[in-house]
């Protein structure tokens, strides 16, 4: 059987370009206990996080462990992910570890850290493609948001009712089918009718910028990683038109 003389004329492995130039994590702590917390977060090591956090809490106050260990570690993870060093799973397992550590610190503190705000997430009526939503949930939680997860295949009525009840800073919708995404427009109309101007960030495979910016409140979310930034904007008082301006043009 003949063999291939030169694969380079058939395909180019662009994924290998610049590979190996990995720079790794750039944060560390002089404190050994905090260093261990940092490492656990950076490695997403949920098995050991409890132990190292408890160890650190033996000598430090909870806010220090949170700020200089857990949150500092998570910020570095975000940087590594943004720069393509980490893949999504590294970001997610880190956030799992971080949230577990946080839990322990909060117990010790005797109170929960104040959340940055509440976000309601859902996957459209008739649609069970909810993986995008799950990623959004994880990333928002890792960034300090209180997430109300309405789940998948959520009737329009339920989304509207939840917004009225919880007055979130932002509501999100995921839809993967062009035949289910039409629910978003109905939600938007209902919210407006009742005087709500909550930014409504919509994303998912079949959903397009063109579609989402075709109804009021709609802001298009291309990638789950944008969700925390968008929520921050909403908390900072940006309205849906400003957000659309910023994220969708």
């Amino acid at each position, binding site marked *: 059987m003949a063999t291939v003389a030169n694969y380079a004329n058939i395909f180019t492995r662009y*994924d290998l370009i610049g590979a190996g130039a990995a720079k790794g994590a750039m944060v560390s702590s002089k404190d050994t206990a905090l260093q261990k917390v940092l490492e656990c977060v950076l490695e997403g090591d949920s098995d050991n996080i409890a132990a190292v956090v408890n160890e650190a809490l033996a000598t430090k106050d909870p806010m220090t462990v949170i700020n200089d260990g857990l949150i500092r570690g998570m910020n570095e993870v975000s940087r590594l992910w943004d720069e393509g060093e980490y893949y999504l799973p590294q970001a997610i397992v880190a956030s799992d570890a971080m949230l577990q550590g946080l839990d322990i610190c909060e117990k010790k503190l005797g109170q929960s850290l104040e959340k940055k705000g509440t976000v309601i997430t859902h996957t459209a009526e008739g649609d069970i493609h909810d993986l995008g939503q799950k990623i959004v949930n994880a990333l928002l939680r890792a960034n300090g948001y209180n997430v109300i997860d309405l789940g998948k295949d959520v009737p329009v009525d339920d989304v509207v009712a939840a917004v009225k009840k919880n007055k979130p800073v932002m509501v999100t919708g995921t839809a993967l089918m062009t035949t289910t995404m039409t629910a978003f427009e109905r939600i938007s109309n209902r919210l407006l009718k009742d005087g709500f101007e909550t930014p409504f960030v919509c994303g998912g495979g079949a959903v397009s910028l063109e579609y989402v910016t075709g109804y009021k409140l709609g802001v298009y979310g291309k990638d789950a990683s944008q969700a925390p930034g968008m929520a921050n904007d909403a908390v900072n008082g940006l309205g849906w038109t400003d957000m659309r301006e910023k994220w969708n043009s």
Partner: protein
Amino acid sequence: MPKYDKMAYASAGEMIFGTAKNPVKYGRDFTVGGGQVFPELVPHPRPGTEATKKTLVKEYEKMVTDVLDRCVAIGIPGIQIELEHVYQMTKNPDWGGEIASATKHLQEEYHRKYGLKSGIRATIADYRKPDEEDIRNSVAIETSLKTFETSAAGGADVLSIESVGGKEISDYTIVRQDIRGTLFGIGVLGSRDMEYMWKKIVDIANKYGVTPGGDTNCAQANVAMFMAGGYQDRSVPHTFAALTRAIAAARSLVAYEQGAKGPSKDCGYEDVIIKSITGNPIAMEGKTCACAHSDLLGNLVAACCDLWSNEAVEYHDMFGGTTVAVFAEILGYDVALMNTAIQMGHEKVLQELMVQSDKYRDTHGFILCPENAYEIGKAIVGNNTSYYARAKAAAIKAGQLMLGDSKLQMSAFEKESLESAMRTLDSLPEKEEDFISECADIYKKLIPGFTLANYGL
């Protein structure tokens, strides 16, 4: 329980596009796997048309007519049309039935007038929610089964589904690069759910005298592959997605153990492994399904196909006609090339070209090239003691193959991700019951709503 204990083919070299050991025949003069590849065209309705049954049926009539017209315009000898249900078609059983019936009438007309061969696949939407409901007794499962019946009664020749058993686990584990959980979600839970579902589907098919087609691991292996994405994506490692695919083969096989005959469902990239085991005809999709998603094995995946599909295209105008006609044309010429190769006795050369185009482009193509797929198939039938054992064996074999071929380049990150998964796989318990109880403990804590009862455990 696993049934297959040997390979359908004596070697990978025997496997080729267009021919399957067990061809199936249905529809209007339509034989799949009988020495000729046919296109399978999947049209999707425009948003808004799902509003009423009337508008949706009309949309399908237009789409199907455009497809059949294009076949006649350029000489495509035969075609399968997949009615891949959007939610509304399954949710309302009579909609699915009526659309199948409208499609059949049109196909009959073109068969009468022009002799155009044809078949219809109905893929019922599985909209069960394993983390929210009893998936063996819910409105969702009853409705889906009802729609299988109306579809078969209406005119569908082949029944398929993209079943979602174990998705609550794999959704959690795939984005965490957790191979243990992925093996559990797909290899164990997915397989058990399929056994349950496919018994019922085969019964319905038999009741109506139609063909039980096959399933796909879209809900899990395609999620991993889709997220692994292109060369620049950083969502899921490509090596991890390849392991997921090998596991998926052990799972999707269950349909045939319960009586499915093929053609398999187009988006099951694991189907080539399944063909090596079952000898049943398979539907595949690659470069010409770019309208639905990108992949890194556009040519290779056609190497053993019996139907060649576009996965799905939404109905719209293009300069050259509507999208459904455009993709029917491209698929039509793709299969014409394969059929010419068959007629000239050059099919093995063309197959080798397809393979070499993509074998070293990415890990997914690597493990699915006929030789490697065959090896994975052997690992599956050689470990038929439990769903767990064979799925694990498939993953380990895939990993060994990837690590064993120096032409397959990997970035350091990808390689480390593979080696780490291999270490985990090696460390897993021998027995299925041990594995199940280990996983049950772990994931019941982590995944709200997850219950063993959904899987008869």
